[in-house]
């Protein structure tokens, strides 16, 4: 089974700040990491490969330094890393991004399964995975918490729901977005890191993937950010502690004056 994993390099949210002038994310001096959900998608891809054979290709769209997350993916067991990078991609929203990724997938071709993280922790939209599936006209399931039976032409998965989970079967090729419950990502291995250091990362431009100018980057993005702001701090809060019983009686006591 040949699997493609979409990976985004994101700022580490442990240290997030907004530029008060521009209302955009202050990226300077903030460490970049592999989007945490994508680490789970990658782990699932590598586990499926270990079980069923095939290859894993990691794909990322971003500036040249996004190569770092692709090398990390190689260290974790991916076989190939492909970076799509072009100044013309800058400013892309989820609409333009899914178009661009779709062009890249079609250029590379031949994948049985595409895995994405549920969402990226910077934009938090959860739109690119489903958007990519629609662009490629592939069946897809979001919020997958487990992959079950895999056959030559189908995959059965569990989709996380508020009240339990659904069991669904999709024909392959298909696209899945995964939640963190799906697995425990491995730590990149030493031999993997050494291999990744020497590996060549394929780099593709807009022209290489046949992406048309009016559909990529800022030009291809209908979304406009009107305002980004830090929400004002909430009012006074009281935290209860102790057993559930103790916490409930503390709560009742607090509410008593208003009853």
């Amino acid at each position: 089974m040949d699997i493609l994993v979409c990976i985004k390099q994101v700022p580490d949210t442990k240290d997030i700040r907004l530029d008060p002038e521009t209302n955009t994310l202050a990226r300077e001096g903030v460490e970049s990491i592999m989007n945490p959900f994508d680490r789970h998608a990658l782990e699932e891809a590598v586990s499926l490969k270990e079980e069923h054979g095939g290859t894993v290709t990691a794909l990322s769209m971003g500036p040249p330094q996004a190569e770092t997350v692709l090398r990390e993916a190689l260290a974790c067991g991916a076989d190939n890393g492909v970076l799509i990078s072009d100044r013309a991609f800058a400013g892309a929203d989820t609409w333009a991004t899914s178009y661009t990724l779709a062009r890249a997938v079609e250029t590379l071709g031949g994948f049985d399964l595409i895995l994405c993280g549920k969402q990226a922790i910077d934009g938090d939209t959860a739109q690119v995975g489903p958007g990519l599936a629609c662009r490629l006209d592939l069946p897809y399931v979001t919020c997958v918490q487990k992959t079950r039976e895999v056959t030559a032409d189908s995959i059965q998965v569990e989709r996380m729901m508020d009240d339990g989970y659904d069991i669904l079967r999709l024909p392959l090729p298909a696209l899945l977005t995964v939640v963190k419950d799906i697995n425990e990502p491995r730590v990149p291995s030493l031999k993997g890191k050494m291999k990744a250091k020497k590996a060549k990362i394929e780099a593709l431009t807009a022209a290489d993937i046949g992406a048309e100018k009016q559909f990529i980057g800022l030009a291809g993005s209908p979304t406009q950010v009107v305002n980004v702001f830090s929400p004002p701090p909430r009012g006074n809060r009281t935290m209860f502690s102790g057993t559930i019983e103790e916490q409930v009686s503390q709560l009742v006591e607090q509410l008593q004056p208003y009853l």
Partner: protein
Amino acid sequence: MDYFLTEEQQMIVETARGITEEKIIPQRAELDEKNEFPTSILQDMAKADLFSIIVPEEFGGLGGGCLEIVLALEELARGCVGVATSFAASTLGIFPVLIAGSEELKERYLPDIAAGTKWAAFGLTESNAGSDASGIQTTAVLDGDEWVLNGTKQWITNGGEAKIYSIVALTDPSKGARGASIFVVEDGDPGFSYGKKENKMGIRSSATRELIMKDCRIPKNRLVGRRGTGFITVMKTLDVSRPGIAALGVGLGQAALDEAVPYAKQRVQFSRPIISFQAVLHILADMAIQIEAARAIVYAAARHIDSNPKNMSKASSMCKVFATDMAMKVTVDAVQVLGGYGYMKEYPVEKMMRDAKILQIYEGTNQIQRNVIGQELNKEYA
């Protein structure tokens, strides 16, 4: 400080740090509380190739030396000395095969060790043979094509969890220390079983157990090196493994400092963060000095050993004493800085203090190390 590590050594540090932060720290309190062996963490370490560091490349390893293993152990000990001890003990257990084993034994065991699919253990200590290792009573007698082992080993780290055991036994009891040999005993060998599992003060996630050999029969070719050279191999093994224990001290000391400084910055008493009081700040400064000095001596000793010198005992013992005495002092200081909170199990420093004590005791007590250093001085100034 910059210790001029190679890119490969940096990778080892990063990999071990990844295991510590993602796998060990989230589980350490529970493993300690439950006295539970960290099987899944060791499997994660295997996947990350940490077990392959010390194995030569021809057997599927990375061909690293003492410094490489020291770097890994320091990072793992920042997470939990119990978990790190389980890893270190496997390395200790395979050293005799690496140092003196036949090609046949290396081919049989090293690929599994490198892959991390089998763990090792070192069986020297007995109830009457601790600091005086020459007091061992386990015997091995050749019977046709088999060695027959009889005796009980005590306090063996990884006992019951390892599949490969380096066992020291007397092949010629009349010759004392010169009559000892090392054998590889495998889990499942006839007559080999496990006894009492110990309930310890610290490093509680590590397994410490008795090994019982009752007419334990193993093939003739499991003898490691030549008959009667057991103690020489034991001494060489401990010379190269001790900096690893010292590294556990460095990692543990660093972990204690990493808890104490942020706490002192945020803990307010008398309307000021306590780090603004010189009495507290000086404790932290002394901790930092001791840790860095220990790190420097441990790395220097490891590099000395990797240069394959004629004599490595003094350097090995010096770094073990300094770094483990430091770890004991620094962890006690960390508890003091955290005060009442430090004494509670909600904070990790009380565990660090409990874990530190064993470092001054195992792989040769710090008093025995001072004997070794003193004997070397005696020779040097002869």
